[in-house]
């Protein structure tokens, strides 16, 4: 029997994330890490090229996360959302650190 959990885990919708770092800095448990860089957007020959953020990796350490949802609430771009799937156990602490592909996986039941 499947037990519905409103707060099973958090999913990342990567193309909405702007690497603004708000979730990382709001997290009370320091469980989110973002790798990012900046790239030139538009005409690179312009006198003052525009620069935008590019997300390289997004990691949540589920061993530290207390499922408070502050990151979900704080994100101005709705790039983080609750999903009902629980986090599966891992055989090491490092296995609970999920990177961007794992966080973006919305294939399971309860996905958004």
């Amino acid at each position: 029997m499947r037990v519905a959990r409103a707060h099973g885990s958090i999913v990342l919708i990567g193309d909405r994330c702007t690497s603004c770092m708000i979730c990382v800095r709001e997290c009370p448990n320091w469980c989110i890490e973002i790798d990012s860089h900046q790239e030139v957007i538009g005409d690179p020959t312009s006198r003052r090229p525009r620069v935008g953020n590019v997300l390289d990796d997004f990691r949540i350490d589920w061993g530290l996360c207390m499922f408070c949802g502050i990151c979900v609430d704080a994100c101005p771009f709705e790039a983080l959302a609750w999903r009902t799937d629980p986090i599966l156990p891992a055989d090491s602490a490092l296995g609970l650190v999920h990177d961007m592909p794992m966080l973006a996986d919305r294939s399971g039941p309860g996905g958004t």
Partner: protein
Amino acid sequence: MPGDASQIVRVEPEEWLATLGDALDAGLAMFDFLTAVDWPDRDQVEVVVHVLAPRVGRLEPPETQLGTRPQERGSHGAEQGEPGLNGSRLRGRRVHTMLSRQDLRLQSLTGLFRGALWHERETHEMFGVNFSGHPGLRPLLRGGPGTPPLLRTTPLAARLAVRWPGLADPADNPPPGVTRSPRPGSRAVPKVPGVHVQWEA
């Protein structure tokens, strides 16, 4: 705390023992808890204790609870009840006192409430409060040296061992060829959550 309608009393540390003696005389004989809160900005540690009137029997009206001395009933004013287990109202009283962080001493309540033995040991271990008259303030968990762990000025090792991930910023990795010269102070330095200022000193 939700649903808590206990009478709240704030007293000076010198009045601590007498206040709780009065509560016991008023029938508040059930020791609920004793703990502390650190207020480093005020340079104070707050100690709080909660006592209740035991409810004996389901049908007993609240006026005839055991431990109440009839002649003293009412001398402490009307006390609001709080929800009990089966919808009844329990009388309770929460007593607070503020101690100077330089003088963390308080009289022990163990002569009045046996239940305070464990709680005062815990509060001594976690906040460094010395309860005079307690028969044995042995640590419950840690032992050994070190400042009391629940004082906010005690560094949390896990916070010192790890770099705060919020220090990273996309602007640290600008595109090649694009040199930006940010004005001094233009990028706000984010405040690190969960780290007390005194840890960094």
